[in-house]
């Protein structure tokens, strides 16, 4: 927890702050209250022995468990940054700037908040971290709506935003911001990585039926999967939008078999995915035959945590994921070990991406020698690294998106434990999922240090 000791030069409010030594008399006549007196180089500049990070995760609502896992990863990252524990991925990280003495010698402290997976609540929570707690960086979240909203807020306020789990193309596409950075992969990459595997396994002569959650993430995912599968010869029979609040998908799933399609693609996440997949299996789609082939179901974005809710139904179903604990590289193993020993179960992809984002932020501060968002941003832009579980990775300067290998996974037929739900089918190299930075539009703008 940060307690500001109110040093005379610390500015913890948004901008253009003038501090008076005492209250009396100042209020009455001071025409220069709103003068642009720069007390600090950037907002919430830490001057004491500590630096405060804001972990803004869903703690209520359907994504609360994912949020809880993110929080565990953040706490682990803070412990490692401050020199505690076994150091986790700090030992395998290709950059050696982090020394285990906090960030730039300042002990890392943190505040937490509840996004409620609502843009409004998430922004309120982030603002309180910036205005009240003096957070210098905001991170976390489990949906793209929240990521886009909070990223915009951080841009306005002048702090760095390190996105958590957000998969929509928009986050680093049309809604990208100079102060925002995303490590997680996106819809485009899922489509590009999945298509070849689907082609290999199911053939290039397939008819696909899309069920798509009716909101921004659903649209970009449908678009990405459609484009990449059509490019290899698949035909899209239909794409039906389903309400985000839908709980029973029977009326959407029932007509699929008679539609002439032989693949069902569920552009759903979280509860939507669990429920639509369960319905699809109930209606016998997994065992069905169509056009002389086995009927198949595809889930473009898998979440292991939530796949558990679908139970047996995930078996044999292809999807993509950002990271999985069964990866055998040094970084992943180090992370699984320190997370598993602390909490007793393996981390989720949400936990992984948030841990990595925290380390990347801290490392960028060290390399830049400052917490100034502009300096940190410059240090992250174009940064190439390795050893954080996804192989060689590039933080692309043009859109602040990480480019790294993408995992294509399949629901495991014979799980050995309750965590062992997915098996890795293919690690698609980064080069296959890289796209031109301009295709989604949007402007980064310039970095904003908040003063």
């Amino acid at each position, binding site marked *: 927890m940060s307690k500001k000791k109110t040093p005379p030069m610390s500015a913890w409010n948004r901008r253009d702050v003038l501090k008076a030594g005492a209250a009396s008399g100042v209020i009455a006549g001071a025409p220069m209250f709103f003068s642009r007196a720069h007390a600090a180089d950037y907002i919430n500049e830490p001057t004491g022995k500590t630096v405060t990070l804001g972990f803004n995760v869903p703690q209520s609502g359907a994504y609360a468990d994912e949020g809880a896992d993110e929080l565990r990863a953040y706490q682990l990252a803070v412990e490692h940054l401050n020199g505690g524990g076994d150091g986790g991925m700090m030992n395998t990280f290709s950059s050696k700037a982090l020394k285990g003495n906090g960030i730039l010698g300042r002990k890392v402290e943190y505040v937490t908040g509840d996004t409620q997976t609502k843009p409004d609540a998430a922004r309120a929570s982030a603002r309180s971290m910036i205005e009240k707690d003096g957070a210098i960086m905001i991170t976390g979240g489990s949906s793209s709506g929240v990521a886009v909203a909070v990223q915009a807020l951080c841009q306005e306020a002048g702090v760095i935003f390190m996105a958590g789990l957000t998969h929509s193309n928009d986050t680093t596409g049309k809604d990208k911001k100079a102060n925002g950075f995303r490590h997680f992969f996106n819809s485009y990459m899922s489509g590009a990585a999945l298509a070849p595997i689907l082609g290999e396994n199911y053939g290039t002569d397939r008819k696909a039926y899309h069920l798509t959650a009716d909101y921004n993430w659903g649209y970009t995912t449908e678009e990405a999967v459609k484009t990449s599968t059509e490019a290899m010869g698949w035909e899209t029979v239909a794409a039906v*939008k389903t309400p985000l609040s839908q709980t*029973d998908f*029977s009326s959407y799933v*029932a007509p699929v078999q*008679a539609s002439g399609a032989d693949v069902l693609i569920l552009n759903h996440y979280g509860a939507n995915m669990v429920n639509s997949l369960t319905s699809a299996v*109930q209606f016998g789609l997994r065992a069905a035959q169509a056009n002389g082939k086995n009927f198949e179901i595809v889930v473009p974005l898998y979440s292991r945590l939530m796949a558990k*809710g679908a139970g047996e139904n995930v078996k044999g179903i292809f999807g993509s994921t950002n990271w999985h604990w069964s990866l055998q590289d040094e970084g992943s193993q180090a992370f699984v070990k320190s997370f*598993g020993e602390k909490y007793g179960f393996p981390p989720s992809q949400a936990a992984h991406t948030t841990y990595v984002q925290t380390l990347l932020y801290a490392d960028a501060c060290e390399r830049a020698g400052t917490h100034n968002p502009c300096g940190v941003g410059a240090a992250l832009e174009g940064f190439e690294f390795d050893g954080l579980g996804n192989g060689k990775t590039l933080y692309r300067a043009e859109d602040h998106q990480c480019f790294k290998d993408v995992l294509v996974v399949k629901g495991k037929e014979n799980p*050995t434990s309750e965590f062992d739900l997915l098996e890795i089918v293919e690690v698609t190299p980064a080069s296959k999922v890289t796209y031109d930075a301009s295709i989604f539009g949007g402007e980064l703008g310039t970095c904003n240090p908040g003063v």
Partner: protein
Amino acid sequence: MELSAFLLQVLNGLDKGSAYALIALGLTLIFGTLGVVNFAHGALFMIGAFCAVALQRILSISTITLDETKTDFLGNPLKIKTPIVEEWFGEATGQLLIDWSVPLAILLAIPVMMLIGFIMERGLIKHFYKRPHSDQILVTFGLAIVLAELIKAYYGANQISVPAPDMFIGSFDFGMLIGMAKGKLIYPYWRIVYFLFALLIIGLVFAFLQFTTFGMVVRAGMADRETVGLLGINIDKRFTIMFGIAASVAGVAGVMYTPINSPSYTMGMDFLVISFVVVVVGGMGSLGGAVLAGFILGILESFASMRVVIEAIPGINQVVIYLAAIVILLARPRGLLGRKGVMES
């Protein structure tokens, strides 16, 4: 439109409708008999579902043995779990019990929900009979939050998979019965079971109110509580029992729903709004209206989600229930079968 596609959505509508009708039935019992706006009714449905989860967990309580030949994700010896019921009753019976945990959970849910209903009514709701509806809303909404949070604290926020017994996995081919090609009109067994179960419960509740003395008194109390009280009949006790019955109806509806959609702590709130809409569209104080409205709205929702319909009217699947509610309430001032003067002021 093909006949099979049409019939398929009728089946879907009946299936969705049976869930709506069951929840609305319990809600309208409380509305109608006790005059209480119960915002915690969705939570009762959710708790019912978690009775199934609890029973599954209880039956799966295991002894743990270490298998040195295999390792878990940290490289420690793998823990092998053997459910205690398998040790007690033998593997086959034990497996069968676990497999049938959802239907068995009904046996657990009825007493548990009765008890919860009694406690709720005696401990909380009865103090609010004479209070304004706004106070009832606040207290029951608070209770709904508390119940949901307790479940979340114990079971987490993610959905929990509770499968139906193996013999109900798969689908029944209605099309074959009426001479269609194979696979044209199939419907999952468990959803058929759910529909039949809903009819059974609805029938039982109606029969109970119609043909027993108890039911007669309650119906009289619904119509005129004071007069019944003056006749020297202890209506309060009967109302407590009605509350328990309403809670049980919601509970078993929740139990049987778990294989259709894996339960999570938010499912009560998910169903809350729709169940109020169903009750009001059916008409205040009318059990038959609630059931009818449940099925009508279920069928409308199913048809609105058809591709041809969505393509003709974009977004109709998002709003159809509310649109239908508005049209019905404007056409019929007290909903489908509502009685005059109930909750109208």
